[in-house]
């Protein structure tokens, strides 16, 4: 469904992503792990059109989407989240949801002519947003300013918002970071549910337990390069992974806990 071929991104002398190829199969949950600075976010930025590739190709559903503008890639059903979720702070949770509804092209003249605060079409989107918010556990927050949400709630909203637009594939950048265990469980359930409905996921995260538990297939990056790929238990037992990533990560975890 999504295929990255020989992607490279150089920032001056820094080879942030160096010749990486990955494949995400339809309705799969594919993981991407690697220590800080491995190049995961940079890879996401290239796929989603936020930064141009130095070299390489991105193919989505057979179409070459390399270096297309971000807004265009989003409308194809590829949606990405951000490592640091901010949302639209001075807008309510409901407004945040509605921005992602597909009625964004409603015209200016229609708006001027419409005296109703909420059009029937919008009413539909509002209902839909309410249902999604309820499903993810933000049901009582629709009128809250997003700037008043907790970090965990923001993470959940980051994920709930794009559901308004019926995307096909989610690129989630560290969705579990900073989330409390209860919210994490509902996030895992939610992702699995959505996968069962046919949605596809590419997930970057530091939380190995989370990734191992949820992913069908995992890629491992280090210093911009792909160093391993395989099924979760293969990854868990691969020497190079333990060396370059898990070992390092475990010490970090103990420190931060």
């Amino acid at each position: 469904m999504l295929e990255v071929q020989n992607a490279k991104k150089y920032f001056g002398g820094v080879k942030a992503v160096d010749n990486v190829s990955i494949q995400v199969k339809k309705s799969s949950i594919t993981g991407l792990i690697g220590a800080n600075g491995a190049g995961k976010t940079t890879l996401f930025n290239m796929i989603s059109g936020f930064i141009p590739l130095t070299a390489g190709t991105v193919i989505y559903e057979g179409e070459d989407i390399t270096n297309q503008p971000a807004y265009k890639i989003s409308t194809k059903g590829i949606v990405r989240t951000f490592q640091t979720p901010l949302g639209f702070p001075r807008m309510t949770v409901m407004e945040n949801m509605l921005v992602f509804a597909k009625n964004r092209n409603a015209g200016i003249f229609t708006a001027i002519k419409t005296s109703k605060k909420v059009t029937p079409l919008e009413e539909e989107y509002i209902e839909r947003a309410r249902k999604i918010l309820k499903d993810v556990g933000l049901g009582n927050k629709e009128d809250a300013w997003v700037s008043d949400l907790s970090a965990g709630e923001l993470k959940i909203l980051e994920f709930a918002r794009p559901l308004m637009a019926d995307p096909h594939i989610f690129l989630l950048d560290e969705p579990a970071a900073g989330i409390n265990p209860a919210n994490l469980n509902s996030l895992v359930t939610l992702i699995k549910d959505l996968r069962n409905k046919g949605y596809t996921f590419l997930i970057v995260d530091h939380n190995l337990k989370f990734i191992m538990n949820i992913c069908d297939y995992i890629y491992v990056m280090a210093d911009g390069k792909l160093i391993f790929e395989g099924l979760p238990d293969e990854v868990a037992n691969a020497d190079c992974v333990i060396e370059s990533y898990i070992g390092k990560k475990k010490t970090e975890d103990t420190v931060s806990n």
Partner: protein
Amino acid sequence: MLTGTALFLSSILTLAAIYAVIALALNLEAGVDGLWDLGVVSFVAVGAYTYTMLTVSPASAGQSYIMGFGLPMWVGVLAAGIAGSIVAFLIGKPTLKLKNEYFLITTFAFAEVIRQILTNERWLSNGVAGVYNLAQPFKTYFTPSVYPYILLLLLVIIVFIVYVVVHRLTYSTFGRSLKALRENEPLALTAGIRPDRFHIRAFVIAGFFAGTAGAFYVWYSTVITPSLFTSDITFFVWMAIVIGGLANNKGAIVGSVIFVLAGESLRFLDLGSGFAVRMASMKIAILGLILIAILKWRPQGILPEKKVKFSNSSKNS
């Protein structure tokens, strides 16, 4: 004395109404969309001159300006709006790609360029001498003593219409997309919102209303000269929307009224002609103090941006 006061008050309220139209326009592009436009006076100037050149009689001896078609006023107002939009499009196309800081400087520079052209190109619009004795709408139907109130009434109606239009735009899907861009552009991109397209639309709409405000300003002053269109107007309108409350359309109106009242009522203090210069700087000082007080104690403005709630959306307001 009473009629003198009332006349004076109606005159400054008329001016406040004109500022309110510009403030509503600026509020859409700067408050809702978050564009740092420091050249909104460009649209006002071009609108005012377009209106004048289309509606006046041909230039007489000793004058020189283009057109002078003597067209009806409503045509002139419409043309002023369109001219404002065109200027917005021409300025916006290359500059809206810039970061806010550069956009601010560029729009400011364009406003100065336009004023320089109006000042120096005498063939175009009679240069610094300007054009005098311009007509006012419906003037012939009323005695001169009541006419100021008629003009005020007309402008109140106009402010109401502009308010309704800008209000609807603000709370439409279009307005929500503008707000999203203001709040977090990368995230808005992932919603499929194309920044340049939305920014230029907001800018062109603002250009339209600010352009018509130029025509209304000509109604008010009955005179047009380049010196009426300095960047003071831009700064005053910015102050008005910051005082009133950025992204709140009622705030834009309230801010304009407070702003003009505070500035002009100083004239009430009849301190003799020698004080004229001192008064002019007093005005700036007092307005500055109001602004500082607002920013200190009520940074969101008198009427902060409204929270949009849909919880009782079955009852439309």
